């Protein structure tokens, strides 16, 4: 027997409310590809990725047809590349080119894992690797990079934070013809997770199996729609509505993840419960917050509303999936969310409010365009603040800011597609260079000692 209401509800979610599987991401270990030199390693990497993920796109497309639910992105994440180029770090860009070529051949839009994990200290080979990031991002189209600079267990590597300020700036400079798009593909993490399917921060952790399938679900529009039917519900009831909706969304993700893993002959990794917005109208996390009663996202009350949303999404999602992981929560990128863009345009949301919001939700300062003349040390300081929030609160935080070359407050930047558009937002002009210049390690917080 079937229930007509349930069937029509699902179809309505897909057709009108943008319910989709945001990404099916295959994680692939590259550890077996290490060879005696960069050229041989690049060749092995190319062969491994193209062979492993050969059927990723056709399998995802047939699943999409059979279940009638769009699968928006097909992606690959790999072992942090700094680990496989440790013997020849200065030639890491050769691996970058091989990965980009593999991504093009597979027909996937992004491949993540040009990454380094330096949360406790930067080895010499890692410092050399980090220096290759701007060039690697400028010379590739689909490659994404991430660097983990801190963790709750180890503290914050402030030498790496200082370096990343410079690397973010240089990435923007080298891609200035496209408004610094290199920075849209570079994430600086604290407490990075090893099974995140979402870009630009996806990489395949060394603790993972040889190859896995991780799935990221989405559906801000579905949550928004469900809440709009109960405009007078109190917040307990609103949380319940979100929870129930998140459950349904995640179950769709779980089904696709299991089936994709089966057909691809690899393990099912995790379902990431995130609410990921797109610049399309009706697919906005900001609009959910406004539906809850905020006049405009960014006003006082936003942090509380977001905390509730984020928690309810997790509660519903955890019940729906046998394996939950990744970043799981609500994403609040600025340029990728129409509600955020509109609020930023009106000057109603600031970097400071966004920072506060990152204390209670998934990830961090994401896709924020800032003036091109922002000093390196200020970018490092933004990264340090965000890493501190992650470290102290035992959560993942990240910074993906774009210092848009030759643009300043009042200008706009257009990245197009899923990366969207945004006004340049102001940053504080006070000088943090002495603080950043000190370097060293911010020790791990006292509550990290749990043994």
């Amino acid at each position: 027997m079937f229930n007509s209401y349930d069937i029509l509800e699902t179809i309505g979610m897909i057709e009108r409310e943008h319910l989709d599987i945001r990404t099916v991401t295959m994680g692939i270990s590259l550890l077996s590809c290490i060879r005696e030199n960069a050229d041989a390693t690049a060749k092995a990497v190319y062969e491994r990725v193209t062979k492993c993920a050969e059927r990723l796109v056709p399998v995802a497309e047939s699943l999409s047809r059979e279940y009638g639910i769009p699968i928006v992105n097909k992606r690959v994440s790999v072992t942090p590349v700094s680990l496989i180029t440790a013997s020849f770090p200065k030639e890491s860009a050769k691996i970058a080119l091989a990965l980009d070529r593999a991504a093009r051949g597979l027909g996937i839009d992004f491949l993540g894992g040009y990454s380094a994990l330096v949360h406790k200290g930067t080895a010499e080979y890692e410092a050399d690797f980090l220096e290759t990031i701007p060039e690697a991002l400028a010379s590739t189209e689909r490659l994404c990079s991430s660097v983990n600079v801190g963790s709750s267990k180890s503290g914050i590597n402030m030498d790496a934070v200082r370096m990343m300020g410079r690397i973010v700036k240089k990435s923007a400079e080298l891609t200035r013809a496209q408004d610094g798009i290199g920075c849209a593909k570079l994430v600086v993490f604290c407490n990075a997770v090893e099974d995140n399917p979402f870009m630009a921060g996806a990489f395949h952790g060394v603790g993972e199996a040889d190859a896995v399938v991780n799935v990221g679900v989405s559906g801000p529009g579905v949550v928004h729609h469900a809440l709009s039917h109960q405009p007078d519900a109190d917040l307990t009831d609103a949380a319940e509505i979100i929870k129930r909706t998140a459950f349904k969304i995640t179950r769709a993700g779980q089904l696709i993840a299991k089936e994709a893993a089966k057909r691809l002959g690899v393990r099912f990794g995790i379902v990431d419960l995130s609410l990921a917005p797109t610049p399309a109208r009706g697919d906005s996390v900001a609009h959910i917050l406004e539906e809850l009663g905020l006049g405009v996202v960014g006003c006082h009350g936003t942090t509380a509303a977001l905390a509730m949303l984020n928690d309810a999404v997790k509660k519903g999602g955890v019940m729906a999936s046998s394996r939950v992981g990744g970043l799981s929560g609500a994403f609040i990128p600025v340029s990728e969310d129409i509600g955020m863009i509109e609020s930023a345009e009106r000057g109603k949301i600031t970097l400071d409010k966004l920072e506060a919001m990152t204390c209670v939700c998934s990830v961090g300062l994401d896709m924020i365009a800032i003036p091109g003349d922002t000093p390196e040390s200020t970018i490092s300081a933004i990264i340090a603040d965000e890493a501190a929030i992650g470290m102290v609160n035992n959560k993942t935080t990240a910074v993906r800011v774009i210092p848009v070359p030759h643009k300043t407050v009042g200008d706009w930047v257009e990245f197009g597609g899923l990366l969207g558009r945004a006004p340049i937002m102001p940053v504080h002009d006070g000088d943090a260079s002495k603080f950043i210049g000190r370097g060293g390690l911010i020790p791990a917080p006292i509550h990290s000692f749990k043994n």
Partner: protein
Amino acid sequence: MKAVVTVSGTDRRGIIAKVSVFLSEKKINIEDISQTIMGDCFAMIMMVEMSDCGEDFALLAEEMEALGREIGMSVRIQHADIFDAMHKI
């Protein structure tokens, strides 16, 4: 395998007939059917069993969409598991 066929659009004569004939030609058996008309709007849901249908699902889904265009309705077929997953614990 079980699938769900949904047909919606402006009501007119012969919708069920056309869809049923198509399914029968494809050796797909209709196990349950429900239909409602709200104003001018027609909505029909069929639960079908397709183990005798040898055709590739993606191709079948495209043919059903084409049938929909021909009769001026939206016609879709989906694996039943998606509904079970989302609505049953």
